[in-house]
């Protein structure tokens, strides 16, 4: 599978990542405790069964948590000092991008994960999550890293009846670049913003980064 230059989560002693499929209703779609196998649920708490792309997406999300822990210099000890917003927004971006690569590029669903992908799948894959804003959505599961990467400004655009409110003028960061240079030294919005400015792509200004980051 193409993971676009991201690091695979090889554990220190060569241990494998293990996932357990939960054949039952849960109020979560997946969770990761790092030292024990990740859980991925089959049904939502209301009995609705997740589609296979949603299960795929959740599995990527949990795996991205493990990768994030492993790239921190002291692993878990440093990871727990990272803000919940960064800890959750990073896997949101990775699951969006890798699920899109798989379902659009490999399996051929023409606009999967794009800004006009309206099929009702779990966020972040529907409308590329561009309808997210702090007042209506989860405050930790944000579009922060998606917006650093994409070249789409959602401000005033429409997504299933909701108008985008974030003025996203930033683009062209790569996920592998963020993972290698930025994430490893970022614990909260201040350190993240400084690191983003230190490693910004050509054409992106500090002012544009500040404008984007004020929404999170």
């Amino acid at each position: 599978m193409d993971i676009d230059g991201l690091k695979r989560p090889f554990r220190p002693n060569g241990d494998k990542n293990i996932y357990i499929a939960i054949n039952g209703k849960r109020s979560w779609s997946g969770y990761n405790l790092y030292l024990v196998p990740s859980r991925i649920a089959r049904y939502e708490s209301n009995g609705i069964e997740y589609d296979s792309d949603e299960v795929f997406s959740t599995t990527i999300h949990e795996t991205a948590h493990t990768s994030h822990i492993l790239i921190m210099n002291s692993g878990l000890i440093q990871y727990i000092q990272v803000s919940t917003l960064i800890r959750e927004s990073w896997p949101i971006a990775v699951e969006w991008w890798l699920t899109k690569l798989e379902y659009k590029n490999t399996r051929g669903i023409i606009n999967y994960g794009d800004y006009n992908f309206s099929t009702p799948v779990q966020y972040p894959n529907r409308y590329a999550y561009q309808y997210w804003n702090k007042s209506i959505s989860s405050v930790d599961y944000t579009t922060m890293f998606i917006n650093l990467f994409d070249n789409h400004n959602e401000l005033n655009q429409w997504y299933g009846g909701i108008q985008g409110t974030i003025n996203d003028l930033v683009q062209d960061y790569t996920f592998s670049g963020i993972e290698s240079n930025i994430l490893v030294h970022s614990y909260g919005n201040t350190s993240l913003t400084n690191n983003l400015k230190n490693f910004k792509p050509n054409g992106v200004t500090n002012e544009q980064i500040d404008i984007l980051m004020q929404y999170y």
Partner: protein
Amino acid sequence: MKEKVKVYFLLSLLSFSSCEDMSSTTFLGIVNNESGHSIKIIPYKEGKIKESAIVILINGEQYQGTYYSERGILGDSPLNLEFIYDTDSIIVTFDDTIKAFHYTEFNENPYNRFYNRESDRSLYNIKSYEKDIKDLSKKERKVNYVYTFSIDDYLDALSVH
């Protein structure tokens, strides 16, 4: 010392045990016809009718979309009504004669009532829907979006007919 390390490690684990929101919100779109007339909702994409998404309601009837669920306790989520997604315009007819147009792109229609997306009567605008929120528990929320066609909608369409 070993015990201390164990306790610290356990605390560390617990501190990020919830890496997914352990809660969910279920959304449902509903359309009520209280206009006193029969209505037909006909969605279009690029000039072609999306047949599978046509909705016909006699007066007093209700249409429900399909349930849609998201992680977390949320305020809003995109509308999950089939006549909304993957369409670019909708014609609503009252008694198969009086028409109202709902557009996603800015448009003007001097011969019929029309609503652009910013309108609070547009089927494409979540603000046109009354929001009914029920918190079933701390971990479970239900949100219904309800659009109600009233006699005023009929009269409004009739006035430009």
